[in-house]
């Protein structure tokens, strides 16, 4: 165990040197690192949000919202399909999780069934063989009733699409907020994790991603008022929309009867900017349509001069101005009780596009920058004090060999930092605790070895034999004990989230490096000592332990 071939020594030294090189960036500021020559590694360990401060938001897509949207669209499709097939229906409505179609004549059921079956689309991955239908069409319990229900497979498919679409939209919105290196990633199947460093007041962030921001322009029904529509029933193709206007606004109405199919939608916007109204000085939003949007909007305003139209945001009317003249240039402005902040937010949202569904915040963790800085300082102080105390004990008990153990510890610390920097693993506060724990474990390996050496000496072995046996016998024990902890670490990483994961990362990496440092490096040092001592004193050596 004490003989090292030359290439092994070279390998060990090389590992230590590389460790030093990769750990180095952590001790310098980003500005200093930027000036380094390119061949030097310049990546430092990224700090977790608990250390640098920032917001962590976990969002979930509202499945009910997705289902509702789907059913609403399906209703239009079903209407069209039946009309094309010339089958009379008395009502199409959403009931529970399905769309219910009631036919005028029950004997049309078979024909209607066939017509509606055409709406079914196969979805899924044909290569993987995971295909299925997106909706299920079946006959209801009563005659003349057909039900269309989204399948769970179809819903899952929609959810996956909505999640990836939401991630893109959120990314655009969050990036528009500032320059921080934010991160928007998928978590699980339908969750989105937003991490925004350096932010302590999350209200703006939440406002920005909390709104779907579906914008649309609708024609207002010329005669029927909201009160009439609510007491009787809105005309076909029209719906009552609640208003978000303030009561003291000129021309305030609590609700409007609007054509359900919009004239133009937010998808057709190419730009939106916050601005101030030149007359009232109130915050407004100016926007520009793309070509097709401009044409549709132009045609509509040309034929409806003098009539009101409504601007609807997330199913609420934000304003309903009267068209004074045809708007042909494709640009316009929206006013509607904005504050400077909300106008700014809405402009960002409109530029970034609407979210496919409503998002709810299911978990929030925010750490202010001052607490983060305090935590780093406290963690570092604890690590330094703990290390010094442990160093004193080790050197006192094991003498020169104790110093070798400490050198091994330094290598261990360096290697963890190097590994974490190289793979970009994030350092968190529990991670610091995990690191400190691995130091204890690295020392444990040395204690095991040295106690064994002493035991062998007490048993009357020669000094050289004692070192040899000590390292060899202790090694299997160290391996067994470290491997079991590694098992625990892996499970923590696999199952855990947040703080558990950060802890598991440093613990698992630390076990690997601590075996190398405490066993290999210390052994090399002891072997060198032995070689030196033999050369100086021949066979009469005494281990300083």
């Amino acid at each position: 165990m004490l003989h090292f071939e030359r290439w092994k020594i070279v390998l060990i030294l090389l590992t230590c040197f590389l460790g030093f090189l990769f750990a180095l960036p952590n001790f310098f500021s980003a500005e200093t690192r930027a000036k380094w020559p390119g061949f030097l590694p310049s990546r430092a360990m990224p700090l977790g949000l608990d250390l640098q401060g920032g917001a962590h938001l976990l969002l979930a897509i509202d499945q009910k919202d997705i289902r509702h949207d789907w059913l609403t669209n399906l209703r239009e499709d079903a209407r069209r399909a039946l009309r094309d097939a010339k089958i009379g229906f008395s009502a199409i409505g959403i009931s529970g999780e399905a769309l219910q179609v009631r036919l005028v004549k029950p004997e049309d059921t078979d024909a209607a069934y066939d017509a509606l079956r055409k709406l079914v689309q196969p979805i899924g991955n044909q290569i993987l063989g995971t295909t299925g239908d997106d909706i299920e069409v079946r006959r209801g319990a009563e005659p003349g009733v057909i039900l269309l229900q989204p399948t769970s497979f179809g819903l899952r498919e929609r959810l996956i699409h909505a999640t990836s679409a939401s991630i893109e939209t959120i990314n655009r919105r969050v990036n528009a907020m500032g320059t921080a290196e934010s991160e928007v990633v998928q978590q699980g199947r339908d969750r989105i994790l937003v991490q925004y460093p350096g932010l302590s007041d999350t209200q703006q962030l939440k406002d920005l991603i909390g709104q779907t921001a579906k914008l649309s322009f609708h024609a207002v029904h010329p005669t029927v008022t909201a009160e009439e529509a609510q007491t009787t029933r809105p005309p076909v193709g029209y719906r009552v929309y609640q208003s978000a206007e303030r009561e003291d606004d000129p021309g305030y109405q609590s609700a409007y009867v609007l054509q359900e199919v919009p004239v133009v939608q937010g998808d057709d916007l190419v730009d939106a900017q916050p601005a101030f109204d030149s007359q009232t000085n109130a915050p407004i939003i100016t926007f520009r349509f793309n070509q097709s949007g401009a044409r549709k909007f132009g045609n509509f305003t040309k034929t409806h001069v003098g009539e009101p139209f409504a601007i609807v945001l997330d199913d609420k009317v934000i304003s309903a101005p009267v068209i004074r003249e045809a708007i042909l240039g494709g640009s316009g402005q929206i006013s509607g009780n904005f504050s400077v902040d909300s106008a700014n937010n809405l402009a960002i949202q409109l530029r970034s596009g609407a979210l496919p569904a409503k998002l709810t915040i299911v978990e929030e963790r925010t750490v202010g920058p001052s607490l983060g800085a305090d935590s780093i300082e406290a963690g570092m102080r604890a690590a330094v004090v703990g290390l010094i105390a442990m160093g004193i004990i080790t050197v006192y008990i094991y003498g020169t060999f104790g110093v070798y153990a400490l050198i091994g510890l330094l290598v261990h610390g360096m290697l963890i930092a190097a590994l974490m920097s190289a793979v970009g693993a994030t350092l968190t506060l529990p991670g610091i605790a995990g690191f400190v724990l691995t130091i204890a474990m690295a020392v444990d390996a040395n204690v095991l070895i040295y106690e064994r050496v002493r035991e062998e000496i007490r048993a009357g072995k020669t000094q050289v034999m004692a070192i040899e046996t000590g390292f060899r016998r202790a090694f299997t024990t160290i391996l067994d004990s470290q491997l079991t902890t590694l098992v625990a670490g892996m499970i923590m990483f696999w199952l855990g989230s947040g703080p558990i994961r950060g802890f598991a990362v440093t613990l698992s990496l630390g076990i690997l490096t601590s075996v190398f440092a405490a066993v290999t490096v210390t052994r090399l040092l002891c072997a060198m000592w032995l070689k030196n001592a033999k050369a100086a004193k021949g066979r009469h050596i005494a281990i300083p332990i």
Partner: protein
Amino acid sequence: MFLVPDFKGHDIFPHHLNLPIMRYKELCFGISLLLMVISLGLIFTKGFNLGVDFKGGSLIEVRAKSGEADLSDMRSSLTALGLGSVQIQNIGAAGDVLIRIEQQEGEEEAQQAAAKKVLDTLGDGYELRRVEIVGPAVSGELRMTGLIAVIVACIAIWAYVWFRFEWQFSVGVLVGLAHDALITAGVFSLFQLQFDLGIVAAFLAMLGYSINDSIVVADRIRENMRKYKKMPLTELLNLSINETLSRTVLTGVTTLVVLISLIVFGGEVIRNFVFCMLFGVIIGTYSSVFISSPLIEYLGIRRDAMDEAPAKAPAQTS
């Protein structure tokens, strides 16, 4: 002499003691059993003081900009909001306050709304240090994965020990694990210490440490079984425990030194976490010396099985 001048260390451990540990095993088993029963009772009657991770709700830490927080004023204005139980607690410096709001009726949005109300009520006099809001869906999931993590870890560790050692050792180890986990959980219940996600990590780490200790002793037992074929089992177990005692104690001390440093200087955020590990190291050391290893005597172990097993290291006879 290499790198540093030679100087001898101090072997401070009294190696000649040879403590009659096996003689006290009934006493230790009795005490441990009692502690485990009490812990179980506490867990079922008092339960845990679950943190927002597991119970849902909000945790808000603020620092008074004036340096001094008016707790009674804060208490009256926050309880007036009608958000159910609101805990207000001074931590660390005089200006640092921790506010806990219980999980609100309703879904995820209700939690956000409650936290917003509190923040609006506190106003500009306070700097926001930390906000944690966990909705009912996530807290349920975290509870589940936390529990699964501990159970799976125990099983995996146990399987590893079974694979590497004889089954008697693995039983001893598993009992030791259950012992440590249960009593630590009992302490958390007794003092109503906050139990959150970090504590689960601490639990796993502490179980890893306890296993470490047990394996070192088990390794020695196995070695001695090959070495002293005729020695009675009780004597052999006692010898093995004693031979490894210096390592057990010294490692325990160095680990404790580091953990104490963490608990004193590491700050408020990880204090419970470190306390859990600190307690775990103590109880884990105790259990591997006084519970796991003596237990092997009851389970019995076939000495001849040792010979059949391919020996990793050649048996040494002195």
